[in-house]
């Protein structure tokens, strides 16, 4: 089980690397989907079956699809690929890389000092999760539903406005 964990983690990290260094937007998205699937695997190893299912269905299945739709709407072509390559010059990523490395070092240092314990794969069943959601965390669930409503309304409104102004501009689309 430990080796499965290591393999899944490696896949997740490498594919995430591929996301942040990708030139083509769709490629980056696909890498991310792979990363999500690897993380779902880790969830399974830790006995969080419900979380793993949700990860795949909602995160990889809904959110990423939304990303893909918008990406297709924006229609990145070979020109955008060249632009991305041009934008990722060494001067751009030197400082953030340094910061990220320092952050990594600090996190690992903090997390690795002291033992927390071992997990042997005992599952926390969806039943328990459901009982918790509709028990102590009921208020949170309701708030989340309102949040989703707000997101829905906001997205609808923004899109409608966009449609109106596009019509005013006589549909002159500006290529990126």
């Amino acid at each position, binding site marked *: 089980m430990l080796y499965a964990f290591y393999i899944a983690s490696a896949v997740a990290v490498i594919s995430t690397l591929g996301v942040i260094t990708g030139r083509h937007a769709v490629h980056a998205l696909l890498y991310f989907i792979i990363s999500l699937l690897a993380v779902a695997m880790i969830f399974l190893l830790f006995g969080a079956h419900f979380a793993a299912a949700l990860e795949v269905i909602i995160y990889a299945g809904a*959110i990423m699809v939304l990303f893909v739709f918008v990406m297709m709407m924006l229609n990145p072509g070979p020109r955008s690929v060249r632009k991305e390559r041009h934008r990722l010059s060494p001067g751009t990523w030197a400082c953030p890389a340094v910061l990220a490395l320092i952050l990594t070092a600090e996190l690992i240092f903090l997390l690795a000092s002291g033992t927390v314990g071992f997990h042997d794969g005992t599952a926390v069943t969806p039943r328990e999760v459901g009982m918790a959601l509709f028990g102590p965390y009921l208020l949170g669930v309701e708030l989340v539903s309102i949040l989703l409503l707000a997101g829905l309304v906001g997205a609808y409104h923004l899109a409608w406005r966009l449609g109106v102004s596009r019509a005013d501009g006589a549909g002159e689309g500006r290529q990126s």
Partner: protein
Amino acid sequence: MNGIPVEQGLIVAGLLFVLGVAGVLIRRNVLFILLSLEIMLNASGLAFVVAGARWLQPDGQVMFVFILAVAAAEVALGLALILWMYHWYGTLDGDRACSMRG
């Protein structure tokens, strides 16, 4: 050797989070920045689930559900805004969306 060390799970979450941070800092294309934000959210969700599993409590997964909902709402609105930005500035370059003088 009867299980996965929980710290290592957390370390993986940390690594993914840092990669997300690096992505936000490095990329100029707002789409990629949004994507990196998703990476960060995902990583924090992983951390929650691992922690909850350690104590064999459902609270970790409950938090993960909430994070998922937040991520969904945020992505929806964020993409709408990105479309607006594309309509307004004609480019997806984040640095171009700056009207400060000085």
